[in-house]
């Protein structure tokens, strides 16, 4: 049972939540840029939250399946079609053998996630399926998918099989079977254009000029074209230190906003290096990273300072939303 890559899209890679436990060896975390869409896609097909998914960027891929598959598509709207028929997102979809899934240019958002029930047949590398592009390891042969690639599929999970059983009761002869319900908007992150992103103070926040600290949260910053999985470079009011700072290399993480000498901030993303040498003015909260990952180049970001307590409460709320989705699916299909 395989999927075949008929057209690879712009940047299509296998990701999971990332490599945990390896940063002390200089090994980056990688992983899905939008962890919410990745997790939801998995739950919708009866997988655990962190099975590997296929992450597509800006222009999606075209895949064919030589066996029936239970899949879901979450994240950016790339006008997905199965055998030329539009297929809805954020719900389980059962497709027959020989089907062709095509994703086009993103109309909204940047990254789509395809989950397949049972995951994909790929080896774990350092305990993760995430693709480490720069080191050429992990995911599918350590690289973006190319035309002609074939990836082995696994058996649907037992919950997946229960979902399929229900779906098959729908109209026969259509390109695919799906549900009318889908993940509610309230449960999703607040994906939108030109978003406000909540941040907490970074370790070097006190080292910045009062004026710059104020500017960070009042003036918007535009996402520069040179933005990718490693980091989003921003342009806007330059941020300045109050006095020169000899900063030692220190840890950075997903969402760290660092300020190089130019004063133009950079938000570090999934493929960031483990450490950096620039002052860290603030940190985008984990719950808002999915929104950031779906914000296109050219959009303006506005930052809002919140407390750690609030940031953690929001992370907890997200966890609860996903738990609730998982429970709902279990209850509906078993």
């Amino acid at each position: 049972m395989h999927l075949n890559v008929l057209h690879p899209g712009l940047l299509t890679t296998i990701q999971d939540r990332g490599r945990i436990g390896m940063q002390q060896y200089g090994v980056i975390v990688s992983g899905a840029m939008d962890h919410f869409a990745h997790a939801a896609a998995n739950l919708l097909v009866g997988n655990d939250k962190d099975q590997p998914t296929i992450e597509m960027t800006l222009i999606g891929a075209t895949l064919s399946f030589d066996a029936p598959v239970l899949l879901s598509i979450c994240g950016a709207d790339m006008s997905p079609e199965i055998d030329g028929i539009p297929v809805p997102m954020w719900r389980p979809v059962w497709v027959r053998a020989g089907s062709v899934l095509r994703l086009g240019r993103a109309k909204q958002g940047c990254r789509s996630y395809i989950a397949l029930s049972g995951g994909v047949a790929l080896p774990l590398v350092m305990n993760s399926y995430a693709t480490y592009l720069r080191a050429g390891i992990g995911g599918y042969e350590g690289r973006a998918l190319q035309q002609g690639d074939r990836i082995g599929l696994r058996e649907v999970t037992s919950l997946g099989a229960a979902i399929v059983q229900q779906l098959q009761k729908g109209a026969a002869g259509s390109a695919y079977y799906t549900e009318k319900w889908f993940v509610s908007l309230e449960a999703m992150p607040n994906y939108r254009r030109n978003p406000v992103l909540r941040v907490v103070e970074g370790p070097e926040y006190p080292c910045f000029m009062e004026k710059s600290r104020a500017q960070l949260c009042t003036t918007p910053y535009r996402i520069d074209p040179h933005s990718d999985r490693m980091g989003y470079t921003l342009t806007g009011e330059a941020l300045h230190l109050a006095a020169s700072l000899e900063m030692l290399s220190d840890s950075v993480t997903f969402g760290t906003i660092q300020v190089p000498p130019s004063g133009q901030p950079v938000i570090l993303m999934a493929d960031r290096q483990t450490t950096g040498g620039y002052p860290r003015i603030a940190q985008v909260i984990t719950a808002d990273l999915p929104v950031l990952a779906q914000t296109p180049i050219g959009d303006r970001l506005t930052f809002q300072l919140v407390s750690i307590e609030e940031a953690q409460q929001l992370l907890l709320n997200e966890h609860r939303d996903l738990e609730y989705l998982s429970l709902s699916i279990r209850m509906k299909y078993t």
Partner: protein
Amino acid sequence: MVIIIPYCSMHPLGDSAIIVKFGEVISLDIHTQVTRAAELLRQHPVAGFLECVPAYASLTVYYDSVQLWKAEEKRLKNNQCLTEASAPARRDSPYQIMTEALQKLLGSADSEAAIPMQTVHIPVCYGGQYGEDLEEVAAKNGLTTEEVVAIHSSAEYTVYMLGFAPGFPYLGGMSRSIAMPRKSSPRPLIPAGSVGIAGEQTGIYPLATPGGWQLIGRTPIALFLPEQSPPALLRAGQIVKFYSISSDEYDQWEVTSCT
């Protein structure tokens, strides 16, 4: 029991990590505290602990807020059953729970125990095709190439941290007498295993990457081993010593490592 809190400050790095800072400069004393703290955590991983990353003067601890929150909920529920408290119990945030747990761990008597120092000996074929910039480094410092090799390989280097690339060590302890600024035009590709000098730092490239380091030699051993556990030859807190091998020995090494 007396709790001795070593000099350290804690600061959140977002909602899922804490930086435990032991000082402001690069110093062996400060770094020993980093290594000790990392070792303590390795032996006694606190609830919610995911991983820790040593740096020059700090240790960053990554943790799972949700897991901690769930444990806290359980604790509060148990307390309510036991004490019949009518007022709502104070709920600590995962950040508070984690900082308290770390302070307790770092202040415990074990934190005074000596950490065994491990020395790793790394063979290097200096000069020639493997160290194209060795002559330049020697000339710049008014030394012969033999003297540069002797100085480079006689020092004991501390691995302060790994970063920048998988398995890449930030080494401290290089003699200033062989220092040399980075190349003004970086090479598009530096072979994996290359040993170089950049300013007053020396290091080894675990992967082929572009770079501006002055190359003085190459090691045949792998620093990054993704199939192994741990996946890196080196770790923070170790001592590194380089020793010179001939190009014949280098070729032999490559052969034996493939069998």
